[in-house]
């Protein structure tokens, strides 16, 4: 299994889409704070009623707890779709899967490698955001740094559970386009309409107060404050619900 993960990490580092998405994510994180300042300036110059000034300083905890600034999450998830689908698309999977005692190991290894992938995106997101912030604001050490690290870890776990959804859709069910649509929806926080539709379908069974958005990883990660137990439970349960079938189905299905 370790060998497969190393293999997936190697091919990820060799992948052009990973490097391109990572670079764009870095640039977007870098311009995050300067663009925000520019918007303030523009808004002030366009209307004399707005008299808000751009904050001169910002807490370090605020920067650390946002690992995917701007469209970082969407880029990370799109990059994962390319990564999950690459060996299926070009048929390389045929060179490997047959020689595994369980073909599903290849899915598990991709999922595990995706954790490193997400860490890379979080790292460039935070570093880019820090550099960009330093250019326009003063960063102040505050007492919330420890808590922001807790939030960061929880967000990464929740993103990992989104990876379980994507690995099922893209690798096992071989639908890159559906995976990319999901990546955009999750990444830009546009899933609320879908959840509303699902809620309507579930209301006759679970009652009028049914709201699945409160237990979906993409909405939970935007909750403030982020509840540790709830976030952990959502991440783990979502991960298991989607990852286990992804492995099992891949194992049973013929490799094409």
């Amino acid at each position: 299994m370790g060998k497969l993960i190393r293999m997936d990490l190697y091919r990820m580092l060799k992948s052009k889409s990973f490097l391109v998405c990572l670079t764009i994510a870095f640039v977007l994180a870098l311009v995050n704070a300067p663009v925000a300042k520019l918007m303030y300036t523009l808004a002030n110059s366009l209307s004399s009623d707005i008299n808000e000034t751009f904050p001169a300083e910002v807490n370090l905890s605020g920067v650390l707890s946002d690992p995917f600034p701007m469209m970082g999450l969407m880029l990370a998830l799109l990059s994962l779709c390319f990564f999950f689908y690459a060996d299926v698309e070009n048929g390389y999977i045929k060179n490997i899967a047959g020689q595994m005692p369980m073909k599903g190991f290849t899915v598990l290894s991709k999922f595990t490698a995706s954790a490193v992938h997400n860490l890379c995106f979080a790292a460039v997101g935070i570093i880019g955001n820090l550099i960009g912030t330093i250019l326009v604001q003063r960063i102040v050490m505050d007492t919330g740094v420890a808590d922001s690290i807790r939030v960061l870890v929880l967000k990464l776990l929740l993103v990992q559970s989104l990876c379980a959804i994507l690995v099922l859709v893209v690798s096992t069910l071989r639908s890159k386009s559906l995976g990319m649509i999901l990546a955009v929806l999750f990444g830009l926080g546009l899933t609320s309409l879908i959840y509303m539709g699902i809620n309507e379908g579930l209301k006759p069974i679970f009652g009028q107060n049914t709201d699945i958005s409160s237990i979906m990883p993409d909405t939970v990660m935007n909750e403030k404050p982020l509840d540790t137990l709830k976030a952990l439970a959502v991440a783990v349960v979502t991960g298991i619900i989607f990852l286990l079938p992804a492995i099992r189905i891949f194992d049973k299905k013929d490799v094409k």
Partner: protein
Amino acid sequence: MEYILETNNLTKVYGQKEAAKDVNLHIQQGQIYGLIGRNGAGKTTIMRMISGLSRPTRGSYSLFGKTGMAMQKQLKNVGVLIEHPGLYPRLSAYENVKIKCIGMGIKPKGYVESLLKTVGLENTDAKKGAGSYSLGMRQRLGIALALVGDPKLIVLDEPINGLDPQGIVEVREMLSKLRDERGITIMISSHILDELAKVADAYGIIHEGTLLDEFSAEELHERCGKSLILRTDNTPETLRILENMGIRGVIHEPDGSLRAGRGMDQCKEISRAIVNAGIGLEEIYLRTMTLEEYYLGMTGGEHNG
């Protein structure tokens, strides 16, 4: 006899269609086994099941004498090239092979180079992606990938497809070398039956999902036997002369020549009789039936082997 691969009523059903039906094939250690059949006969289906890429609907198979879970562990000893080579088009030959080496826990340094040398790709441009390679180069790279991990059995589906004549000879020599020097057992399918006949030690003929026959190269030689071929400017009179000499059952081939299963030891007498009758003898010779002719005779059909 102990077989490296033995299938037991191996069957694969897709929807209503039985792509492979109760296939019982047997491959011995160190053999090159040629699987022959038309397009859609079920060759690839069988190869995919044997290499663990597809599950049989019914039946089973043993690898290196193991069955069940123990057999699953043996799959690491089976290298495959099924249909088109699966390659990362932007990565070089070296990187493509290196990826699989890492996946199988093999240190790539030195190993990758030796594999590329084995398949004749040692001089490829390291900056050139596999997507820009010719079909032949991609096939060779596919074979190199199948060889990663030094498998005991390699399954090659149409590996000489798209190769130029020189490339075909090189792959043929490479396969013989792998068998003779490394003792690798090779299962191979090909449309080019004459080429297959030059390397294979045993054959299986598959037709509409069913294994019609299995035989060794020696058995093929015995079964094919020799024929007497002759061509004259007066076929009806020639046929009468042959009949008078006790040579019956002569087949009139579409190209105008005559093929007889008897009289191979009477070439001189036949030639003399024909010439004495004033018939122009254009050619007379002995010929062994080819694998292709044997295959066509078995399947009763069109050439699509």
